[in-house]
């Protein structure tokens, strides 16, 4: 384990330490943006201020899903969120998308309190949420149709994005006629087609084979670079996070807190198989593993007999 993962208290804000792994870690709650990448004065595109969110579970009590989250995403930033299963990643994205209400704290979009959903923030759901009553093409066109885009434009856009995800041949299929990975790609195309300011992606490549995923990584990076969109990308694949992100945020087990952030300083284009990417990922993974082990011990400790 390299010593690049340090507390912000130790590392002065704005000060960067070059490291072998190309990572700059900062402890949670000290969200100083690195100079040169995005000036501090910019209003963050998305701000989560001291967010807590609890779920009521049956009658047994409440489950704290998110615990005092502070997170600021700059316009045009590619932020990746990693964390153990069930730590609150999806919940966090739902919150930003305006589909859930936080229990306390506030969500700001462009510095203004978020009011429910908005087409400026499109989410790719982990459960996909495709509409079974529409064909693949109609699914992809859905957002455009809601926005009142003309039929011709809708069709051409849908065709573009369907080609992007290699599903143009399947445009007239219904969802149940697709394989798992194909469905995931439809969801991707559907979200991309609306061309939102903020793209919220919840494990969008989890069901894809390595090759397709690689191709889509490239395409996503290209789109991001060309259009300057803000992307919040949830994944359980740390290497993917390092491959794509400007910054990687690591959430703790349960309740979900920001454990640590890493700035990924590797030059683009990067590739999953690049050695620096692998090295950086291994570093984060180590930290993550530590975290999970702690939590697992706590879980087993709770139980009497095994």
């Amino acid at each position: 384990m390299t010593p690049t993962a340090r507390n912000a208290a130790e590392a002065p804000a704005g000060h960067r330490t070059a490291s072998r792994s190309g990572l700059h870690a900062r402890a949670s709650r000290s969200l100083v943006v690195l100079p040169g990448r995005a000036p501090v004065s910019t209003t963050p595109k998305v701000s989560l201020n001291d967010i807590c969110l609890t779920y009521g579970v049956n009658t047994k009590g409440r489950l704290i899903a998110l615990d005092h989250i502070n997170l600021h995403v700059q316009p045009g930033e590619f932020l990746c969120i990693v964390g153990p299963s069930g730590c609150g990643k999806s919940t966090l994205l739902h919150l930003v998308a305006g589909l859930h209400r936080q229990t306390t704290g506030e969500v700001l979009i462009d510095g203004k309190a978020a009011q429910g959903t908005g087409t400026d923030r499109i989410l790719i759901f982990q459960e996909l949420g495709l509409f079974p009553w529409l064909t693949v093409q109609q699914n992809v066109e859905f957002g455009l149709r809601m926005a009142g885009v003309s039929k011709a434009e809708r069709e051409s856009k849908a065709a573009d994005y369907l080609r992007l995800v290699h599903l143009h041949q399947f445009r007239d299929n219904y969802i149940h006629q697709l394989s798992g990975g194909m469905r995931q790609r439809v969801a991707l195309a559907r979200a991309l087609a609306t061309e939102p300011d903020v793209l919220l992606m919840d494990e969008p490549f989890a069901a894809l084979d390595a090759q397709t995923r690689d191709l889509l990584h490239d395409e996503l990076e290209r789109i991001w670079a060309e259009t300057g969109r803000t992307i919040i990308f949830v994944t359980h694949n740390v290497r993917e996070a390092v491959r794509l992100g400007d910054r990687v945020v690591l959430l703790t087990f349960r309740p979900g807190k920001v454990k640590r952030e890493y700035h990924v300083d590797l030059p683009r284009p990067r590739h999953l198989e690049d050695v620096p990417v692998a090295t950086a990922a291994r570093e984060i993974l180590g930290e993550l593993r530590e975290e999970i082990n702690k939590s697992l011990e706590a879980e087993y400790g709770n139980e009497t007999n095994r």
Partner: protein
Amino acid sequence: MKRTARYVLFYSVLIAAWVILAKLKVWPPYIFPTPWGVGEALWAGFADHSFWIAIAVSMKRMLIGYGLSVVFGMILGLGIANSKFLEETVGGLLVSLQSLPSICWLPIAVLWFGLTEKAILFVVVMGSLLSVTISMETGRKQLPKIYSMAGRNLGAGGFQLLLHVTLPASLPYIVTGLKQGWAFAWRSLISGEMIFVSLGLGQLLMMGRDLNDMSQVIAVMILIIALGYIVDGLVFKTVEKRLQERWGLAPAS
């Protein structure tokens, strides 16, 4: 081929059983009519055009009344499902209001509309409206959250969400509601046509009963069943089949 064979078999067995029962004279023919008696009644009815007219008149009423029920039932159902106020007030009463027999609406229909077609339509609508409403409301309530979340996320709000997400997603429920509504509408129509002599099938049925003419009663029953069968085959079955194809739902194994 096999399907047709089964049909033929089924109905042949039914009719054969009827013939045998009638031949055995377990019950006197004036209460258990013979197939040929009913056949005669049917023949006579069609020959003097009274059945044709009754079918035309009743179907017209059904289409208008049922059509109104479907439209307003859906609107009401969605309204209830979307408004806490409506839900808590009218919503709670839905099932009970739907339980009110048509006989309750007859005096009101006469009072408001007099002896007009509208009175009959009113009875039909009151009888079947809430059935569609109930299904619509349940459909809306039992909707998996993910659909409306995805819809809202993609920019559908208010009416658009309703039209493009809630409605199609509740379609499986709506189909049940439509079927039940159709049955309710028929039953109410028969009641409604009792208000005054108004040519329809309900009238014929009532006459048959008033005259204790079981052959006529059964002839009209057969007509109602046949009409229902046609509508079911043309409308409901088609919708269901498309639903199954699109959604990839379980076909009758």
